[in-house]
């Protein structure tokens, strides 16, 4: 559209950017990803006095360097999309630091309006900011606002529209003096840049010169591809100057630049912009809370309580909606299966598609509740305190203090789920630490592994159930943290990302903010993971079904059934056919005999399926860990979802359908089987805990990182688990545990 005004919203994290964005656009926003990276691209539309406005929410940054994806995204957006006006939101209670970014926008020359936010908070702290004085000194409009209540937002947009429509204001870079040494260098660099037309189509020449002095990787790389010869001249000039500076004054040019920027800011603030009414040293309300909440003794206790609370919220409170969804899906499946003729098509619709859709949707309440809980912690400012308290421990393993949340959600308290756990890693801003967390959270004991563990522990180690469960929970933590350490010293090697982080003042989250936050993240899961999950679900169904039994074999089983039925009177047969529970003793016996045949048939069909053949083929390798083909099939089924292991084992042992919650009979059957003993059970337990994450988790890893890492996770975890299982089985065999 022609007369639509494009605006961008920029500012420091915690300056109230998202709150203002939600205030302005309400629910009319669209969240996507910048291609190839996980930074959200948020865009919203609204109209103001008859003008249509499109507003892009840039990621929150403190600076415009090339050190983080957020900063690169913000910078590239400004120079490439050239929004007509930038609304720079600034926290009035922390003006000096916030103006550092403003200063860089001014140097870039973007048309800008300052939204002076949180004037109420500043006033409470005795700080008064003279907006008009600041506007005069900076030469741009400054509008005081309170983003939470929406105060001042109309005037803000009026001013922004005025700036956007004023062509004279467009792109006027501000010159800040960086001291005699650098100013001289910048002048000579600019002459070179202007003469050769070096990157002048993208950046103002002064901006390019400064970025070269700041040693900015991205701009230097761009320069080298655009005009290699010029780039070389400039680079050698810069390295001369910085070499000289380091030798004579022991400072880097970027430090001098930063010093002068703050100098510029101070000079402005001192001209009557800021007045302190009372002592700034007094304890703010936030500090008083921190005195308790990060206290040496109380802090960890409160933290554990809060984390446990989020865990409870995610998994207990979502139980009801999950079960509603579950019964809706199974009701829907029943309706469909009643109305379709028996056969492959029906089986695909019910077992493949409806089951798959159920798999996608079944996680939705879980994810919603988790993101709601996390949004509360994030928006209130508590999550930063958790990172602050946990960092010392997690740093040992090459992780970040913020890694604790994904670990807990994934099953750090047994019974979580890796799918929301993987999604929860979004709160980590350090790329390597985030990836290491992402790859290790699937080791935790999720809720779907628990029935399998319960089955095997119940069958083979029933004398010490609780002790074994506790041992395995601790073991998963140890394995996950040690493998994080392993990743961080091999494939993800590198310096820790600086921890330098803001502890934002505590705030009451707004309901609107929480709901938008929760919904946009949940919707992204449905949209991005949904279709793939459905596809793979059908694929796994096909693997467990095809090629099926030959007509001869089916006929043979029918023959058996006929033979059994022949031994009973006709009225008994008709009695078993109609009902699920047989009334008379004879009918019960008949039903039992028939179900044995059904079980045998299901077993043979499974054995004959693609998955079954795969299981048999794997036997030559898996026997080192003590697994026979039946276990193998169950493990293949476990790739769909870990709880499938129990039901597939049931089919493979021709026990028909086994309910994963009541698996005692299957446990008995395993105990009597010559293939199974304590050694095999222990090996299987370890393998199931640590092998490839289920494919829904894999897809989430692919979406959050890349397919490369998703495959890495599958292969690494499976190999690792197999080595553990073989080790335990062989030791068990030699020490006579079997």
């Amino acid at each position, binding site marked *: 559209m022609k007369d639509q005004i494009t605006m961008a919203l920029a500012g420091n994290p915690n300056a109230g950017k998202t709150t203002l964005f939600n205030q302005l656009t309400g629910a009319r926003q669209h969240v996507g990803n910048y291609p190839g990276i996980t930074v959200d691209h948020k865009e919203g539309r609204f109209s103001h006095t008859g003008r249509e406005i499109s507003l892009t929410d840039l990621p929150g940054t*403190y*600076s415009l*360097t090339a*050190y983080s994806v957020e900063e690169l995204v913000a910078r590239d957006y400004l120079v490439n999309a050239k929004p007509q006006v930038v609304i720079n939101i600034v*926290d009035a*209670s*922390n*003006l*000096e*630091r916030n103006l*550092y*970014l403003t200063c860089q926008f001014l140097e870039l020359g973007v048309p800008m309006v300052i939204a002076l936010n949180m004037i109420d908070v500043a006033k409470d*702290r005795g*700080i008064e900011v003279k907006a008009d004085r600041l506007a005069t000194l900076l030469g741009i409009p400054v509008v005081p606002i309170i983003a939470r209540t929406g105060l001042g937002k109309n005037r803000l947009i009026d001013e922004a529209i005025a700036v956007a429509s004023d062509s004279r204001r467009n792109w006027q870079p501000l010159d800040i003096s960086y001291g005699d040494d650098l100013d001289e260098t910048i002048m000579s660099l600019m002459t070179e840049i202007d003469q050769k037309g070096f990157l002048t189509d993208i950046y103002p020449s002064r901006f390019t010169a400064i970025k070269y002095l700041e*040693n900015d990787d991205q701009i230097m790389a761009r320069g080298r591809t655009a005009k290699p010869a010029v780039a070389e001249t400039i680079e050698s000039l810069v390295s001369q100057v910085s070499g000289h500076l380091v030798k004579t004054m*022991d400072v*880097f040019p*970027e*430090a001098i630049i*930063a*010093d002068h920027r*703050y100098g510029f800011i101070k000079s402005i603030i001192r001209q009557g912009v800021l007045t302190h009414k009372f002592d*700034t*040293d007094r304890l703010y309300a*936030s*500090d008083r809370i*921190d*005195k308790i909440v*990060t*206290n*040496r*003794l109380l*802090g*960890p206790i409160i933290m554990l309580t809060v984390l446990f609370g989020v865990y409870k919220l995610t998994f207990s409170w979502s139980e009801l909606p999950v079960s509603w969804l579950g019964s809706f899906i199974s009701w829907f499946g029943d309706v469909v299966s009643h109305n379709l003729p028996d056969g492959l098509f029906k089986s695909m619709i019910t077992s493949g598609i409806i089951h798959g859709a159920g798999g996608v949707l079944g996680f939705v309440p879980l994810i919603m509740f988790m993101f709601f809980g996390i949004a509360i912690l994030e928006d209130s400012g508590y999550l*930063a305190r958790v990172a*602050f*308290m946990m*960092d*010392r*421990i997690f*740093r040992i393993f090459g992780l970040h203090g913020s890694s604790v949340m994904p670990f807990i959600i994934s099953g750090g308290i047994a019974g979580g789920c890796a799918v929301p756990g993987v999604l929860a890693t979004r709160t980590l801003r350090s790329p390597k630490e985030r990836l290491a967390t992402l790859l290790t959270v699937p080791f935790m004991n999720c809720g779907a592994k628990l029935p399998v563990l319960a089955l095997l522990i119940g069958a083979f180690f029933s004398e010490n159930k609780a002790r074994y469960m506790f041992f395995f929970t601790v073991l998963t933590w140890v394995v996950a943290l040690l493998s994080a350490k392993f990743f961080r010293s091999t494939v993800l090697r590198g*310096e820790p*990302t*600086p*921890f*330098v*982080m*803001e*502890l*934002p*003042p505590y705030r009451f989250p707004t309901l609107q903010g929480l709901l938008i936050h929760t919904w946009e993240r949940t919707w992204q899961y449905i949209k991005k993971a949904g279709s793939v999950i459905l596809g793979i679900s059908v694929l796994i169904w096909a693997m467990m079904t095809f090629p099926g039994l030959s007509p001869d074999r089916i006929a043979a089983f029918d023959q058996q059934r006929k033979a059994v039925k022949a031994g009973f009177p006709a009225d008994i047969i008709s009695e078993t056919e109609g009902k699920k529970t047989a009334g008379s003793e004879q009918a019960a016996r008949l039903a039992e005999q028939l179900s044995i045949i059904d079980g045998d048939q299901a077993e043979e069909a499974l054995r004959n399926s693609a998955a079954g053949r795969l299981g048999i083929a794997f036997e030559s390798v898996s026997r080192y860990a003590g697994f026979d083909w039946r276990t193998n099939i169950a493990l293949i089924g476990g790739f769909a979802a870990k709880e499938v292991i129990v039901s597939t084992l049931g089919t493979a042992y021709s026990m028909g359908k086994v309910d994963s919650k009541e698996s005692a009979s299957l446990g008995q059957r395993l105990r009597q089987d010559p293939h199974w003993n304590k050694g095999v059970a222990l090996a299987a337990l370890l393998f199931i805990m640590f092998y490839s994450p289920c494919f829904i988790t894999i897809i989430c890893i692919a979406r959050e990182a890349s397919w490369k890492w998703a495959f890495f996770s599958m292969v690494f975890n499976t190999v690792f688990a197999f080595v553990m299982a073989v080790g335990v089985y062989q030791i068990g065999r030699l020490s006579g545990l079997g």
Partner: protein
Amino acid sequence: MAEISLRRMKVRQTGTITSVKVGGVLGQRLREMGLVPGTEVTIQGRAPLYDPVALRVMGGTLTLRNNEADFIMVEVAEETGVSLDR
């Protein structure tokens, strides 16, 4: 007046930054958060395991790991080098 490293400052102690001797990402991060020479900092508290440290800088609160605080030199009022840090 004495110049000590930020790591050695005590809780509630105030000082003025004299130098930040580190380049690269860390240097940039420290500077953009306002940790430049001339800035006044007050130690606000330490995490339960004594590391990281929380400081009041300008109008906000920042956290730093101890090994990151090592690069920052601070001028504090004379007080013979007793330190809470182990």
